[in-house]
């Protein structure tokens, strides 16, 4: 199958994590991974971002698929259940708001800049080497540390489930994927028209019974 330019976006995802090791301000670029899928879902009503442009998904597919770092086992049922997916989305968004709150505390001078990266919302790692002085306001750096924490945490979770289950198991409970799917559902309402082929196909009747 012919490769397209977007099949190489996994390099951008890797580069993003790599740059954050040297200058935390690069973490701001991660907002692209946040807003692009949402804009595509709201404006275009599709999950093209997940389907084509998600560098992280490609990275997992490469690592777990081609390089064989995945057991390629079926994920447990709960992982794809609605309560887990929506629950994880809620948890993720709550943690995101906490991160924004911490940024605001630094902006208002209540708290000092914390030059740490928090993994799995629990473990604080020193990350001071990636902060190079006062060229930007402290809150800008605080947001960068917070956002990088989110990106690194989700990558670690994704690698964990990649190893245990299928390469792109992260996609099953990815908060961005869940959010964009919800947006697409809301946009379509109950008006999802299946193709004629689908509607008339007897195999579907058999398999869905």
């Amino acid at each position, binding site marked *: 199958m012919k490769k397209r330019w977007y099949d190489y976006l996994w390099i951008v995802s890797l580069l993003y994590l790599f740059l954050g090791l040297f200058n935390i301000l690069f973490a701001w670029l991660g907002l692209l991974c946040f807003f692009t899928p949402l804009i595509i879902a709201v404006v275009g009503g599709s999950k093209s971002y997940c389907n084509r442009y998600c560098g992280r998904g490609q990275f997992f597919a490469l690592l777990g698929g081609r390089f064989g770092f995945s057991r390629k086992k079926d994920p447990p049922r709960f992982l794809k*259940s609605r309560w887990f997916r929506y629950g994880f989305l809620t948890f993720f968004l709550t943690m995101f708001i906490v991160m924004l709150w911490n940024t605001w505390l630094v902006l208002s001078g209540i708290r000092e800049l914390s030059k740490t990266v928090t993994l799995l919302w629990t473990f604080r790692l020193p990350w001071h080497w990636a902060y190079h002085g006062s060229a930007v306001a402290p809150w800008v750096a605080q947001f960068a540390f917070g956002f990088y924490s989110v990106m690194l945490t989700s990558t670690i979770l994704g690698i964990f489930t990649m190893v245990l289950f299928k390469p792109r198991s992260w996609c*099953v409970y990815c908060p961005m994927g869940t959010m964009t799917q919800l947006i697409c559902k809301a946009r379509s309402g109950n008006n999802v028209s299946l193709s004629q082929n689908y509607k008339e196909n007897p195999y579907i009747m058999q398999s869905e019974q």
Partner: protein
Amino acid sequence: MQTVAKRVRKATVGREYCVACGCCVKVCPKSAVHIVKGIFAEVDFEKCIGCGKCARECPASVIAISEVPL
């Protein structure tokens, strides 16, 4: 003489749990799968040859290959 119905293999998507990630679309050698409005994957049965690549790739394991009468 009794006639034996010929059976073929086709992929079917469990729409309820499909996350519409598009992994199946990427691996299908016949371009038989597409995502419907960002909600779930759909298989074109005219094109599907039942090779099972999509089922193996699906991270949620919601694609089944079933033997069905022709």
